[in-house]
Structure formats: C-alpha cells, structure tokens
C-alpha cells in the first residue's frame, strides 16, 4: 500500500560528511557492484563500451565549487535516496510497487508490481530514482537491505556497501530516529542538514556541511620569486645584451 507508515519503528539512513568526502567514487562503484546482484538487480548498463553510455546507478557523486566571502572550496557531493519520512515518490505510485517499510523506514520498490510509469521519479526532488529502460521498471537505493540484515555476513559488514567502501569514513549508517545513536549524535554535533527542507519531504539522510575555514593554516606557503637583480661584470654585460 502506498499510504505511509505513521510512526516507523526505526529511521535507518545515512549521514554524509561533505567535509571529508574526497570524491573518489568508491561508494559509487561499491554500490553498483553490490546492487547489480542484489535486491533490485540488475543495474542495467546500456551500451557500456560505446559512445552513449547510460545505465542505472543508485549513488552519484557530484563536485561543486562553493564560494562565500570566506573563500572558495571544492565540495564533493554524493547523491542517493534520502529515505524521506514523507516520500511523495511512494504516495504517487498507482500500483503499490513503491512502499515505505514500517519496521525501519526504508523506501523500496517491488519490481514485480512496477508498471514503469515514471511518476515517482517526477515526484522525487532529489533525482534518487532511475528508470531501467531494459527491464522497464523504476529502480532505486535499497539502503542495501540485503546486507544490513544479512546473517551470512560478518557483523561489521552489515552496513550499506557505500558505507563499507568509503576510505575517509565520510559515510555513516544508523538509526536517525534514535537520538542516542551514533549517527544522531554526529548530526547534532556537526549541525547536519536536510536537503531542500522547504519542500517538506523530511529526508532521513542528513548531510554534514564542510567545517568553517580557520586561520590556522599558512596563508601563503612560500615566498614569491623575486626579479633577478642586475649584475655587473661579464654576466651583467650578457644580460644587458640579451635584454636589448
């Protein structure tokens, strides 16, 4: 049913640290690798070695230049499903293929019910859903639902593939409905924000903004080169001759 659960027992989601993300794309490839064989498999690639590569990805990393009066900086920005508390992608679904789980708040698609009308992708402001033209159904991030509860994996591996892959620990996974959880504490401490809060989707995933600039670093790392002083003697004569 595409009606939303009133009070999900948990709010599982990601916290993404824009301060430490280096844009290495490891989360992107780890996501693709796991999920092309996972719950929403396959993540079809069209013309993968041709001139018009296209395909389904659940996680994409953009790079932005953020310029303020404090200066400019490059911010790498991973974008994936935010598992919103009021996901319009679910309520617009005419078939019941999209749903939000009561037990943990994860937003999923039942591929066998999806008619591929694409309305859910229009309803998502974040571009989290991508259409698989080959299978004819919509696909999206599952928060690696087939990893996080998977008894066949070692306990430390029961996190989404993107979180496991991140070399700088810029991605954190946990229950954002529990104020005592590590992720909630991190959000509180670092002032984590919602994306497009004005639209009222109440995303579960939070983004930690880059830390503010400090004056601790050297403002100029080395002295600028000085012009060569005019010399006397033979070399001075050569310099003068060549300068003419």
């Amino acid at each position, binding site marked *: 049913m*595409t009606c939303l659960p009133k009070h999900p027992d948990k709010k599982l989601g990601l916290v993404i640290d824009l301060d430490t993300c280096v844009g290495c794309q490891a989360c992107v490839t780890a996501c693709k690798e796991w999920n092309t064989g996972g719950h929403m498999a396959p993540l079809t690639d069209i013309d993968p070695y041709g001139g018009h590569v296209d395909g389904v*990805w659940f996680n*994409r990393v953009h790079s932005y230049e953020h310029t303020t009066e404090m200066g400019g900086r490059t*911010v790498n920005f991973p974008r994936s499903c935010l598992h919103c508390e009021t996901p319009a992608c679910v309520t617009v679904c005419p078939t019941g293929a999209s749903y939000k789980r009561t037990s943990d708040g994860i937003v999923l698609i039942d591929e066998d019910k*999806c008619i591929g009308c694409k309305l859910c*992708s229009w309803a998502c402001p*974040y571009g989290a859903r991508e259409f698989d033209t080959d299978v004819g159904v919509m696909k999206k991030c599952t928060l690696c639902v087939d990893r996080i509860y998977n008894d066949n994996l070692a306990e430390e591996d029961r996190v989404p593939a993107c979180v496991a892959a991140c070399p700088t620990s810029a991605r954190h996974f946990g229950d954002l409905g529990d104020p005592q959880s590590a992720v909630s504490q991190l959000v509180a401490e670092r002032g984590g*924000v919602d*994306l497009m809060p004005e*639209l009222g989707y109440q995303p579960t995933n939070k983004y930690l903004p880059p830390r503010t600039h400090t004056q601790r670093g050297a403002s100029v790392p080395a002295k600028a080169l000085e012009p060569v002083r005019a010399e006397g003697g033979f070399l001075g004569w050569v310099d003068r001759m060549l300068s003419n």
Partner: protein
Amino acid sequence: MHPAFSVVFFTTATGAGYGLLALLGVLAGLQIVPADFWLGFVGLGLALGLIAAGLLSSTGHLGRPERAWRAFSQWRSSWLSREGVSSAITFIPAGLFGLGWVLLGRTGGWVAIAGLLAAIGAIVTVCTTGMIYASLKPIAQWHSRYTLPAYLIFAAMTGSVLLNALLQGFGVGSVAVLVLSLLATLAGWGWKLATWRHNDRLEIPTTANTATGLAGGTVRSLEWPHTEENYLLKEMGFRIARKHGAKLRMLTQGLAFALPVLLLAATFALPWPFGAIPSVLAAIVQFAGMLVERWLFFAEAKHTVTLYYGR
C-alpha cells in the same frame, strides 16, 4: 520535463473527449440538444473515441504496459490511480447514455440521469488528471494554483468547440453553444496568458544551495558524476523548449486561441452549411494548438533535480 508524445496526446485527447462527453451528457439530458441518431452516434463516438485513444496512448510510455491494471489499486494515495479508477467508472454511465441515445433514440428519463452521471465522471476524471501535475512539488510550474483550473478550462474549451463543430455539421447549430465555445476559448486564452505571466515571475525558493545543503554564497557545478546524459537529464533536464519558448508560445496562441476565435466569429455570419466549415476548422486547428500547448507545458517545466546539474 521531457514531453513524451504519448502523454501529450493523452492529456489533450482525453481533455477534449471528456469535455465533449460532459457537454453532451448535460445538454442532451436537459433536451437542449436533439436526440438525433447520427448526432448521438458521431458525437458520443468521437468523445469516447478520443478518451479511449488517449487512455491507450498513455499506456504507450509505460515500461510494463501489460501490468497497467495494477494502477487501479492505490486510489487512496495516488492521483494517477484515482484517474485510472475514475476514467474506468465513467465508461459505465457513458455507455448507458450512448445505449439509450443511439439505440433507443431517447435522451429523457434514465438516459438523462446516465448522461448527467457521465458528465460528473468526466469532470472528476479531468480533475484527477490536473491533480497528477498540480501535486508534484519538485516542479514549481506545475505545483501551482493555475494547473487544476487550466485542465478544467481547456477541457471545457476543446469540448465546446468540438460540440459546436458537430452541431453545425449536422445543421442543428445552436447560438448558445457557439457563444459558449467562443467564450470558453477566450477564457482559455486568458488563463494561459495569466499562467505564463505567473511562471515567468516565479521565485523558486529551492536553489543549488538548499539542494546541496551548502549555505550562503554561490554553488557552481564543477563536474557531473557521469560524462553522458543519464535518465535524469533525458527525462527531467529537457531544454529545447526554453530555447524556442517565445516562438512556441506565439504558435500556441495562434492555433489554440486566436484562429479558433476568428473562425468561430465567422460562423455567426454564415448560414448552414457554410457555417459548418469554419466551425470544424476551428476544432481541428484548436486541437493542434493544444498539442503544442501541452508540449510546452511539459517542456517549460523545470524539475529541481536539474539544480544538481547546474542547469
């Protein structure tokens, strides 16, 4: 937004079809339109034909059309599902109405009730279609108070212009219907101009800053996550209309409103059968104009996901 032709044709055809069905239901039910066999056969055939062709066309953009029946299930939350349910239910009174009029040759009694119910179903269905677009928050041009009335006005407009063409064609032209179609076309024109004016002055609170959570200053896209256009850019990042916007708006105004107004005005001066020619032409030209209007409705709409791509 990418204007898929199947959806452009679907909303234009069903709008005209439901408009015509509603008008026939009300006017024949109230005995304003005569219970003529050929008028009923052609009129209801055209209305239901447009509706059926539109609905069939709408399944053309589905990834899995064979599962389309599932779309009747989620009417409690989804406007698309409500549209499906409402359109299917409307076929029942519309069918009975057609049966009574065309086969039994009467439009009074229970046939009139069926006609009125069909009209209500038609109006409800057009409302659900409008709400599909009006409820989408990421697209500011659609999520506005102009969208739902637009669908209703345009359905009334194209429906009444079609009805006038039919009545003129069968030599039972009615001045009231002619005036109605003229006024509806002027109303549609005014509403479209007001909508464009509103959209051009739209101040959208969602920016690249709120999209990325990076407060203050400017956020400029340095690098996309991919080198080729992906689904999001193909579906939501459509930009051709913005390039030719002014020309296409002129074309819309000419075909959908200005020419039909002139042709309908000419109908006043011409006796039957000559009045039928401009009336039929008005309906055809307006339908073509509304296809351009609907194409623009999609193509000019900007989805928030384009902010992530600096578009």
